[in-house]
């Protein structure tokens, strides 16, 4: 079965990103396909590489990044949501005249159409939020 997963909360403040990670791993372990994982609202904060949690805590963003690399996943941050919250890739930072970018490897920034396309192309769309 083909899945699209939507994540609407950032790491740490809410559990939804952790739960989505476990769900994504379970989906893949059972031999299903993940068409896309779309991050919206504060969920775009899952895509920063500048988080530094205490040493005995998990680094959620890195777990997403590694899962993406391992399974060649399409992790998409909504551009409008990312711009509001200061999550930038190199091109976008340049375009906005900003002095830095902070996106972590394995994510890309694109539009909301990617979410709708995911809903159309997938057998199941699963939302993780508050």
């Amino acid at each position, binding site marked *: 079965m083909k899945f699209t997963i*939507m994540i*609407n909360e950032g790491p740490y403040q809410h559990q939804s990103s952790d739960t989505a990670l476990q769900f994504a791993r379970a989906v893949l372990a059972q031999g299903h396909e993940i068409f896309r994982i779309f991050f*919206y*609202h504060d969920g775009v904060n899952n895509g920063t590489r500048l988080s530094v949690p205490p040493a005995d805590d998990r680094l959620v963003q890195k777990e997403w990044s590694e899962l993406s690399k391992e399974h060649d996943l399409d992790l998409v941050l909504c551009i*409008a*949501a990312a711009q*509001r919250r200061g999550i930038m890739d190199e091109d976008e930072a340049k375009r906005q005249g900003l002095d830095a970018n902070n996106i972590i490897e394995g994510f890309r920034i694109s*539009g*909301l*159409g990617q*979410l*709708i*396309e995911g*809903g*159309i192309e997938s057998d199941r*769309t699963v*939302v993780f*939020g508050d």
Partner: protein
Amino acid sequence: MATKKFMFVNRKSPYGTVYALESLEVVLISAAFEQDVSLAFLDDGVYQITKGQNTDGIGQKNFSSTYKALGDYEIKKLYVEKESLEERGLTPDDLMDLVWEDEDDDWAEKPSIILVNRAEMADAMAEQEVTLSF
């Protein structure tokens, strides 16, 4: 591209958090993909479509007029849960007059709001293929 039944479930009040505003952005994009779109308003989400919203005192954009434009995007099924209205002391008269124009009926304006009880809302949700909850 295929057409699917999309439902956007709105459960939160329009201000206080950004969910309602950003949810509307997804709704408008879905219309561009020509999907069969409906919206559900329940819990505090019913406040999103109340009349007379005024944000002057909180320094935020009043985006309530966007709901009035939904009909122009062929989004004409807005399910509103009766129990959620009643629990908040609201009646249908407290809601904005949201309409769509029926081109098969000489562009007559028809109401977009469909009042349903909790069980009927569950039925409407069960018909959907993609349900996004905000």
